[in-house]
């Protein structure tokens, strides 16, 4: 047994369960040295949960355990948990685990007189002492009620058993089947247990979800909600909703959007790393294209990326993107990109979340893309979808993964956003909308940023075109009535170029006129100069004649 650590604040002694997420909602585990009841209907995972508690106790906390099974023989149990990768035989050989199958055959047994369950006590005590076990599971003790007649004795003995387990100081799990009016068939166990956990298996709209709830926990605070949990090849994992805190680290790194013009619309030059981005829009507004651009860009930078496609198969996506000049295949080959396609209705929401979680654990991506997130809504109710998305986003934030979701909205009406938008919009950091702009017999695509937390951004609706070379954001064309798109843009351009030409012509005409004037002026100047020169010449001739005359007169 571990000793209690004395600290200024009292900590209720607890035994960690080793079940993913359960320790969080129980605030540390099951009550140490006390019995815990796990009850629920058939196929809820009672046995699995208790088995996982024992095995994890051995492998993770080195606490040997005893499994007393009233239903399944030891061999069956061994086989059942083998699929979870646990080798009971080895644990047994290592003296870490004792599995005792208690078989009570009603047909063989008769009762004559008073008896007690000392046999059970002694067997259990022996098993506990032989390996110094601190964890005990009794699965399912009420089988005794089926095997034995004297209910009064059984009830008294069961009560004694719980007290005895407490004095033994073992942390015990007792499983029980769900009763009609009470939590258990006998309506007894829940009162003598210190902690009661109810497992539930519900089908809502053809999708089944397992849920777990802590009904009581003496001496400790605990999460009170119903928490969905999953059983997969690694056992049980509980996905707590509210226990996650908003204290993840943030990055100021900026990642490029992959669309050249779009980067410029963000003053920071792209998205923050680890942020989540919503691209919403009606059908055919190139949401997927924007998403693929981003995926492509991330892969180019050797960032591992997972693309969850809920509408297209990987091959189809690759082919479609090739038509606009994006080669996703090479990234897939290189191993930087994974495309996972599945129908949303394949699983319940929780299983989707778990798949995401596992892939994230395995692949360690820095970017994920979910296309489209709105398809998941078909699987669950509004509340469920929202809670799932909250958890998804929390999880992604905790891993500092940049996430891009696309969302299809049914109306172009901005005032009545769709469920997905409504659920996600307050959670996402950046929200880009692509939309149709319809008018004068044509449809144009526009893109604008609704919000970008922590980053200045353009307020303009930018028109973009998709050609075989990809997305191209066009420059803003301002007309008298605002931004112009499509034909209006072309007309405006045309008008502008005509007036440009006109102006040019006018200018060159003016130029020529000036030139002509200059030429006339120059000609005049030349004529005057000639006149002046001839006058000068005349004068000099006159002067010369005069000199000659003077000379002659002197000689005479």
């Amino acid at each position, binding site marked *: 047994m571990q000793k209690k650590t004395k600290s200024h604040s009292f900590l209720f002694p607890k035994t960690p369960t080793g079940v993913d997420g359960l320790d969080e909602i129980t605030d540390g585990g099951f009550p140490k040295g006390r019995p815990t009841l796990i009850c629920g209907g058939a196929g809820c995972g009672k046995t699995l949960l208790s088995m996982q508690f024992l095995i994890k106790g051995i492998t993770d906390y080195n606490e040997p355990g005893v499994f007393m099974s009233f239903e399944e023989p030891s061999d069956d149990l061994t086989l059942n948990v083998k699929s979870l990768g646990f080798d009971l035989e080895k644990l047994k050989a290592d003296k870490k685990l004792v599995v005792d199958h208690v078989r009570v055959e009603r047909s063989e047994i*008769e009762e*004559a007189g*008073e*008896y*007690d369950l*000392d046999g059970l006590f002694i067997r259990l005590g022996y098993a506990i002492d032989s390996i110094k076990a601190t964890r005990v599971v009794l699965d399912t003790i009420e089988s005794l009620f089926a095997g*034995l007649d004297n209910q009064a004795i059984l009830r008294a003995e069961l009560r004694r058993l719980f007290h005895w387990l407490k004095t033994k100081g073992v942390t015990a799990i007792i499983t029980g089947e769900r009763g009609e009016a009470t939590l258990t068939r006998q309506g007894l166990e829940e009162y003598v247990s210190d902690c009661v956990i109810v497992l539930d298996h519900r089908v809502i709209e053809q999708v089944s979800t397992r849920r777990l709830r802590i009904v009581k926990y003496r001496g400790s605070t605990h999460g009170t909600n119903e928490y969905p949990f999953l059983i997969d090849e690694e056992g049980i994992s509980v996905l707590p909703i509210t226990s996650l805190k908003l204290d993840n680290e943030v990055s100021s790194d900026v990642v490029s959007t992959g669309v050249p013009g779009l980067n410029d619309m963000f003053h920071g030059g792209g998205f923050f790393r680890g942020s989540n981005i919503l691209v919403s829009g009606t059908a055919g507004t190139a949401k997927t294209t924007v998403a693929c651009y981003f995926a492509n860009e991330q892969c180019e930078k050797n960032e591992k990326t997972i693309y969850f496609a809920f509408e297209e198969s990987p091959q189809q996506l690759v082919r479609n993107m090739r038509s606009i000049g994006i080669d996703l295949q090479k990234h897939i080959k290189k191993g930087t990109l994974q495309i996972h396609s599945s129908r949303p209705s394949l699983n319940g929401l929780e299983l989707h979340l778990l798949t995401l979680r596992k892939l994230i654990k395995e692949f360690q991506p820095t970017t994920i893309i979910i296309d489209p997130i709105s398809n998941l809504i078909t699987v669950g109710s509004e509340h469920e979808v929202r809670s799932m998305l909250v958890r998804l986003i929390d999880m992604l934030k905790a891993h500092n993964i940049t996430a891009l979701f696309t969302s299809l909205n049914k109306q172009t009406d901005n005032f009545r956003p769709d469920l997905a938008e409504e659920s996600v919009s307050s959670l996402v950091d950046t929200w880009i909308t692509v939309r149709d702009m319809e008018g004068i017999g044509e449809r144009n695509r526009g893109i604008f940023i609704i919000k970008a937390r922590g980053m200045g951004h353009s307020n303009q609706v930018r028109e973009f075109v998709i050609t075989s070379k990809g997305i191209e954001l066009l420059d803003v064309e301002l007309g008298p009535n605002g931004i112009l798109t499509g034909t209006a843009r072309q007309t405006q351009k045309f008008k502008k170029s005509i007036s440009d030409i006109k102006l040019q012509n006018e200018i060159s005409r003016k130029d020529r006129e000036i030139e002509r004037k200059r030429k006339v002026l120059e000609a005049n100047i030349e004529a005057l100069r000639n006149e002046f020169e001839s006058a000068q010449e005349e004068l000099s001739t006159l002067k010369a004649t005069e000199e000659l005359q003077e000379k002659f007169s002197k000689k005479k």
Partner: protein
Amino acid sequence: MDNSADGTSTTKHKFMLFVSGMSVKSGHAIENLRKICDKHLRDNYELEIVDISRDTEQAVIHQIVAIPTLIKIQPAPRRIILGDLSDKEKVLRILNLSE
């Protein structure tokens, strides 16, 4: 043990009685069984009393849950009786013995 040939018409009875320490019920069971056997089977029986508080492994082997437990090994069919055997008539009926 030689169980086929004996003077009486009944085959030899073989019992195992599981008790735990010095509990009152265990004492009653031993007492009651002795009485029944002495009266109806005289010497034609064999009784093994197992104290599972000392011999725990026997409890596991024989799937003992309740104490006291009487197991009739012979003659077939094998029967298990729980309790201190105070209901004599019921015990006799189960063991197929008549007054």
